[in-house]
């Protein structure tokens, strides 16, 4: 029997309705909302009926906390999972109208959801979305983003001396053990990328996300000893109570049943080494971030 659910005005049926309230906040908002781009300029406040209205901006701040801050952070500085929205340059947005559309409709191909699609009813009203737009504009840093490093040199380091590509792939080139990084420069803040390089274990990267599952798999480190005494260390591709799927540093995949192992250990200490300033200078890291940002902005 076909479903008879009608789409409301601009409220679509939730693709994420299985998620609970928390989840509805965690997952969808955790991605690329308004991405920074090197070139985009901030256009006029076209179409925003509340442009410059301080009271609306305050109301928008609270709406932002409730609806956006989980990924974009309190104060819109980026939550590690979502981009910093205080930057004037944004990948998907020039005008206020663009921003309204992005909040209303989400960004296809990312986990930035459309308004009202998180299983929590009818979503924000148009007025509330304009309040959020007004709030974001009020906290933007108007100065142009500070010049970053050399993307060209960053690319050299990524595939060369910094050894990033041994484990990470960008645009089809590189290793498989770590997260693929083509889009990371567009979806994560500069600070979050730097933090991931300096302190890879502080916040483990997300791996596989399953449709009905609350939490994505993280890049945890797994060490097992098989029945025949072989020790395998690698990264978790997936895991449940009874099995684990993992990849070792040589990119071998192992599919294992836990009850057949001699031992199974899981650690939140990332396989990625900590890149301290002694190993990777601030300048070189800046260059790598510039490289990732230039790729991510494409």
């Amino acid at each position: 029997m076909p479903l008879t659910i009608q789409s409301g005005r601009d409220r679509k049926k939730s693709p994420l309705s299985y998620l609970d309230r928390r989840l509805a906040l965690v997952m969808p908002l955790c991605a690329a909302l308004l991405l920074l781009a090197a070139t985009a300029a901030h256009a006029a406040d076209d179409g925003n009926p509340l442009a410059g209205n301080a009271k609306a901006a305050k109301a928008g701040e609270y709406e932002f906390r409730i609806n956006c801050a989980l990924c974009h952070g309190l104060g819109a500085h980026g939550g590690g999972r979502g981009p910093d929205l205080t930057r004037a340059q944004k990948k998907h947005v020039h005008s206020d109208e663009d921003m309204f559309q992005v909040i209303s409709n989400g960004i296809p191909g990312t986990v930035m959801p459309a308004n009202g699609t998180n299983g929590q009813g009818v979503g924000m009203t148009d007025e509330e979305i304009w309040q959020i737009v007004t709030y974001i504009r009020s906290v933007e840093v108007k100065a142009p983003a500070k010049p970053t490093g050399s993307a060209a040199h960053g690319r050299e380091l990524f595939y060369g001396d910094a050894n990033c590509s041994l484990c990470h792939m960008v645009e089809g080139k590189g290793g498989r053990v770590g997260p693929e990084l083509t889009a990371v420069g567009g979806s994560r803040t500069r600070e979050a990328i730097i933090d991931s390089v300096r302190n890879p274990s502080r916040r483990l990267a997300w791996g596989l996300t399953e449709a009905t599952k609350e939490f994505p798999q993280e890049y945890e480190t797994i060490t097992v000893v098989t029945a025949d005494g072989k020790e395998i260390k690698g990264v978790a591709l997936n895991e449940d109570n009874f099995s684990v799927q993992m990849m070792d540093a040589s990119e071998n995949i192992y599919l294992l049943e836990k009850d057949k192992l001699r031992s199974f250990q899981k650690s939140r200490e990332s396989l990625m080494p900590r890149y301290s300033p002694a190993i990777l200078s601030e300048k070189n890291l800046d260059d790598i971030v510039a490289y990732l940002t230039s790729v991510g902005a494409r």
Partner: protein
Amino acid sequence: MRARRIFANFLVACIAYPFLTAHARAQVTFERLLNSGKEPQNWLTYSGDYSGRRFSPLDQINITSAPTLVAKWVYQTGATGKLETTPLAVDGILYGTAQDDRAFALDARTGRPIWMYQHQLPGDIRPCCGRVNRGLAILGDKVFLGTLDAHVVALDTKTGNVVWDVVAADYQKGYSFTVAPLAVKDLVVIGVSGGEYGVRGFIDAYDSATGKLQWRLYTVPGPGEPGHETWEGDSWKIGGAPAWNTGTYDAVTNQIFWPTGNPSPSNRGAGRAGDNLFSNTLLALNADTGKMNWYFQFTKHDEHDWDATQVPVMIDSGGKHLIAQANRNGFFYVIDRTNGKLISANAYGKTTWSDTKDAEGRPVAKKEASPTLEGHTVCPGALGTTNFMAPTYDPQTALFYVTARDQCDIFSTAPQPYEAGHAYYGSAYFPSEEAEPYRGFLKAIDPATGEIKWKFEHTSPTWSGVLSTAGGLVFTGDAEGNFIALDAATGKTLWHFQMGGAVYAAPMAFAVDGKEYAAIAAGSAVYAFGLP
């Protein structure tokens, strides 16, 4: 000749008797619900019986045979999202629900559908947490469904045809039903959802034959009613206190025990100073009138969305008539169900919000646990130590089993004006990195002491409920899609099956043709397992 006639009559009787019996048994009377223990092959209420124990007296599947369990059938509901249903089992037929208010009847031997009902939902319903439904109640020749647009619908058990359909409240103001109703005497008892929309919560009882409203208890008292003084100004009008999980019934005292949820707005106490009765409260109601006999409030003036809507499980122990509840706020409460007096409250998960108790023994919130503008970390988080996942009490081990999680959140206030039909939280909460990773458990609690006898740690927190059986087993599901049988005494895993979709439902057991099955919903399907 006479002997032959007698023999012929006997033969007719032999042939006819099973049919007569089958016909008679098609009617699920109140007496059958009261005496559900006499028909262990059936599962007649959301929790299996009136006590809320979610315990099956079946023992064919037991600690010896469980390792040989195999999948018997799968029914694909075709719905998407969280499938939270517990099917009912009645004389070889399962009655269940799926998202967006579908109901269905299945051949319990094969999983083949007999009928399906799809409620016609408007496009602008206001679910808080998914377009979910947790199941049906059955009485006479009808099953009863609460809907997301706040209707109560009676369906014919043989066809799924609508017998009556009544509107309980205005869904556009945020009222909805997700709960499995409870049939008591000739009434269909149901509690409303909408704590995230500033509703005024209520519990209704409808005449099962006609759908006529017999009584309504508002969980937020109006002017002149006891408890009204616990609300600041007009805050009671949008005070929340929904009642979205199924209660239990004690025939001896003719009382319905029904728990309530958070005051609105859920995470901001400013503007509703006071205890906010009867939010986060266990209510003892006269089944005939809905009049309140006593109440026990678990979390006063809640600011963390800690609905107390967990199933209030009736336990009889040492001559005492008790209710045990593993509360979302992280404490396990034991209450004397004859008078509502608290006997004990012990933490069963990670809690930071309370380190003192009042004169009655109730945990009291620290002042600094209140959400602030800047936000700070409190455990458990807004999802609670447990939530809607149904627990179980096994009278054989005398242990209470519950799904629990350790997770903390940063709670931050976000003042928000009330607007009818619009989500109304007054706060935002975020996962606290301090608490990562979140940990999920199945815990076996001794109600006599509050002690945790054993725990099984999941790979990640699960939303599955728990079933115990006379076979010495507990069954549960995990977030990765496994259905798991454990030894109820030790927590040792005996068997598991990967169903391919996360579990948000609670298991149940039934028997047909003398064969026991354990069933659970996962992903978008219902699965039944049995012995080879």
